[in-house]
């Protein structure tokens, strides 16, 4: 099945071939649209024509034959018209007489036996509204934030305070400020969003779909559908990419499909095509971040003051936690006694922003790491030397008062990345806006340094108690093996493979006897959503412990039944007692399955009691553990066309124990490539009509195979020892830091500081030809 090096009898640390790979390379994996459902109706969503207004009427054309079609509006919602995400403000459908808060807000769902008929029917529904003035963009909101703060409409505020910034600024030799902007980003999973809802005879629903968090709809649609959690069952289908885009949004889709399904008794499927998926699903939050930093001549920070404002769109959904993660990363990476960070979630009349890999951290790191180079330039210091001097390391205290343990490899990341990239020499050779004779391209190198909090914020994991089970079962070949039962979803990141490796080691059986069925809330305990770089660290530990529990049960059974009460050990597929003949796993497991029922190992995740967190004041241990990273980018800027080519990226990460090196470097290369798009290609705004201004793959440009640089990826391992096998977060951190590294490289190449992404050729042209010089 897979390669394992001769040297080790452990699967953890080996590049085992992914367990879901074979079906994928052969085109046999059935994603939602590949499953031949019979008798399923197709649903189409009807939307508001204005970004802000009062919904006057939803009118069905009397000339159309509605007999083969079912139409659900807000009046058909069985319960209260509310979707329960992080607050209880967002309706499932806009209701007549109610306020429309964003363009494209759903008002009705049409379902019919064929998609063509449903689309035709949807065209015979007229939505009328009284339009009101709309605030569509973050720059408009920031204008108010700066000029009339009392009028600024925020959905959530939060402060982090450490020391006294006034005192800090008084001690400073220089005060350096900077403002940094970033735009929307589309997740652009290749498989569009889709779900199917099957109404059941007892009034409950069963939903299947491409989603990351099977338990979210179970707990978010109860009020609207008037169904308790046990009457909403959700099963994942293979997920063709998600990146956060299938975190909170599938709840809405299931809610939409459930309405005509419950009304008609027919199963209803809604799948978006690409245009609709780009226009009407959540994006990465645009950000405005302002730093004011007090520095001594020797480079030390005396104070960091930061404002971090994200565009939440029309409803809060999950934006509070995106902002929390953002502000927790705004001043995480550097030593400073006096810090204040203010976070806000601006309300605009745009589509609610949502989860996207990094979840606020890339926006924070974009600001901080751009600003650090500005500070270095002002002080006449080298960016690498300043980072080596100031970076957070074991023993340091974070802005929330957390003492960094020895399990933080921040220094090792910096040292290795600088060495591997030959940074100092290449920085010296950077063009600084001057072409040498014979050169056509400006060359530059730039870096970024950052941490990423792994798992839920603060004591979130302690409160949540992720649950998992490893159960003994007969596999499809009739022989015994185990099933991993957790709600964590395979979406390409490799969780089915890495958790299989972890269980193989903990159980001491081969991975070929381990299965990881698709998450189904009817069958799996809640190990939590597949988010927050938490799965390998937290759920990996849960299955490690659960497998250990099951192994102990098997050993006790074997001792009693096969070894006359002598304690035995399950080791590499055999039960052994010194001096007796070993008995294979299959024999004992078969006997136990015959004699006992429901044999499984279980575990609930714990945090060490010393983890203390105050959610009100944001003081304490913000995350159970931190991953660290350094990105170093080398760029060429065409002096004539202003095109940027990123030629090489050296990336070093401390993600704790590396479970599967090939899979891990694949996560890094993929995340860096998304970050490359975010930085120089992927441009998306809210147009005057309230719709996104890039709506398809011809206008929303993501990196192709021609755009990717050479990647030099390395890991340093500082394991999280509390949760064996010691992984920390990996999924998001590759997205965090490349944007500022590229911007810093462009500054080294052109001599111009660019403080907004994406950095398109137009932006560079303007910077190069502006009358006043930017800050290099």
């Amino acid at each position, binding site marked *: 099945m897979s*390669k394992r090096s001769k040297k080790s009898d452990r699967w953890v640390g080996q590049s085992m071939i992914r367990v879901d790979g074979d079906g994928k390379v*052969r*085109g046999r994996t059935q*994603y939602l649209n590949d499953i031949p459902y019979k008798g399923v109706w197709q649903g189409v969503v009807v939307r508001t024509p204005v970004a802000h207004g009062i919904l006057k009427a939803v009118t069905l054309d009397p000339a159309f034959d509605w007999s083969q079609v079912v139409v659900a509006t807000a009046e058909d919602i069985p319960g209260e018209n509310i979707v329960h995400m992080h607050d209880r403000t967002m309706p499932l459908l806009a209701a007549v007489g109610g306020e429309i808060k964003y363009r494209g807000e759903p008002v009705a769902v049409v379902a019919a036996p064929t998609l063509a008929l449903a689309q035709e029917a949807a065209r015979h529904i007229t939505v009328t509204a009284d339009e009101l003035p709309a605030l569509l963009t973050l720059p408009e909101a920031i204008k108010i934030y700066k000029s009339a703060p009392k009028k600024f409409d925020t959905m959530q505020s939060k402060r982090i305070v450490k020391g006294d910034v006034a005192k800090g600024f008084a001690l400073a030799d220089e005060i350096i400020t900077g403002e940094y902007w970033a735009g929307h980003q589309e997740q652009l999973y290749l498989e569009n969003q889709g779900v199917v809802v099957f109404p059941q005879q007892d009034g409950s629903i069963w939903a299947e779909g491409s989603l990351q968090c099977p338990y979210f709809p179970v707990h978010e649609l109860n009020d609207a559908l008037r169904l308790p959690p046990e009457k909403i069952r959700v099963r994942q289908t293979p997920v063709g990419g998600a990146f956060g885009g299938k975190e909170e949004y599938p709840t809405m889709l299931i809610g939409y499909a459930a309405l005509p399904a419950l009304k008609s008794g027919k199963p209803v499927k809604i799948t978006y095509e690409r245009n609709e998926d780009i226009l009407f699903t959540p994006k990465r939050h645009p950000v405005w971040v302002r730093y004011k930093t007090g520095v001594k001549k020797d480079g030390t920070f005396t104070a960091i003051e930061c404002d971090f404002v994200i565009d939440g769109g029309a409803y809060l959904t999950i934006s509070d936690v995106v902002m929390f993660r953002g502000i927790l990363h705004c001043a995480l990476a550097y030593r400073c006694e006096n810090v204040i960070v203010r976070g806000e979630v601006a309300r605009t009349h745009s589509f609610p922003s949502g989860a996207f890999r990094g979840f606020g951290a890339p926006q924070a790191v974009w600001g901080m790491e751009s600003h650090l180079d500005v500070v270095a330039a002002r002080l006449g210091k080298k960016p690498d030397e300043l980072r080596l001097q100031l970076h957070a390391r074991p023993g340091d205290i974070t802005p929330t008062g957390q003492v960094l343990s020895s399990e933080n490899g921040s220094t090792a990341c910096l040292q290795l990345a600088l060495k591997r990239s030959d940074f100092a020499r290449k920085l010296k050779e950077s063009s600084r806006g001057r072409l040498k004779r014979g050169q056509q391209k400006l060359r530059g190198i730039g870096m970024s340094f950052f941490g990423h909090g792994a798992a839920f914020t603060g004591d979130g994991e302690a409160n949540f108690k992720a649950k998992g089970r490893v159960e003994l079962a007969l596999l499809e070949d009739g022989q015994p093996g185990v099933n991993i039962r957790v709600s964590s979803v395979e979406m390409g*990141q490799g969780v089915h493979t890495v958790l299989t490796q972890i269980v193989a080691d903990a159980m001491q059986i081969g991975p070929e006897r381990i299965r990881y069925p698709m998450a189904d809330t009817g069958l799996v305990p809640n190990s939590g959503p597949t988010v927050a770089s938490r799965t390998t660290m937290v759920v990996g530990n849960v299955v490690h412990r659960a497998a250990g529990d099951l192994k102990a049960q098997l050993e006790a059974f074997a001792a009693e039944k096969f070894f006359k009460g002598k304690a035995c050990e399950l080791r590499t597929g055999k039960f052994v007692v010194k001096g007796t003949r070993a008995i294979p796993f299959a024999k004992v497991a078969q006997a136990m399955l015959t004699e006992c029922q429901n044999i499984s190992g279980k575990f609930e995740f714990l945090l060490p009691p010393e983890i203390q967190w105050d959610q009100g004041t944001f003081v304490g241990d913000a995350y159970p553990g931190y991953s660290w990273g350094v990105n170093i980018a080398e760029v060429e800027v065409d002096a004539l066309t202003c095109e940027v080519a990123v030629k090489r990226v050296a990336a070093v990460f401390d993600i704790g124990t590396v479970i599967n090196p090939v899979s891990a470097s694949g996560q890094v290369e993929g995340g860096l490539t998304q970050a490359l798009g975010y930085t120089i290609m992927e441009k998306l705004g809210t147009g005057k009509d309230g719709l996104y201004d890039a709506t398809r793959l011809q206008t929303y440009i993501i*990196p192709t195979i021609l755009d990717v640089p050479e990647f030099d990826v390395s890991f340093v391992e500082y394991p999280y020892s509390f949760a064996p096998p010691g992984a920390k977060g990996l999924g998001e951190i590759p997205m965090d830091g490349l944007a500022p590294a590229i911007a810093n490289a462009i500054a080294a190449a052109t001599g111009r500081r660019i403080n907004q992404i994406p950095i398109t050729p137009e932006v560079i042209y303007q910077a190069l030809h502006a009358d006043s010089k930017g800050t290099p």
Partner: protein
Amino acid sequence: MSNVQRTWTINGKQTKLRFPPGRRLLDILRDDLGLTGSKESCGEGECGACTVLVNKEPVVSCILPAGQLVNGTDILTIEGIEKKRIGRVIQQAFLECGAVQCGFCIPGMVVAAYALLIKNPKPSVRAIREALAGNLCRCTGYTKIIQAVKLAATRMPQRK
């Protein structure tokens, strides 16, 4: 418009079909023949998830009106690739190199790699990049896909 009739060779098998001439090749493959290995993602020929070989040339089947394809056209999809030795070599290389994540782009990617290697069994990295430039992947950052095609090239049957 009335239906047209065509006889094509699909994955080595003669197949007789009737369809409206404007019907997309992808819909015929997926909906009429149940060959769901070819995926639809963008629907406008930008992403390559629906790539199939038509007379050994890679095409995006989501924007190809099938009436354009004459009798005798040879069509190879991901379902037919694994019956070819080179196809299996490519699939194995993708697995070994970790070139697969979510998998949604992979059938199109494997078909495009096959189209390259049957013509150019020892491609340069530049040639690999150019051959796969029409296939978007959002997961892998392409690096391991390039490695996989390079590895497959080292295992190509020798021509004599």
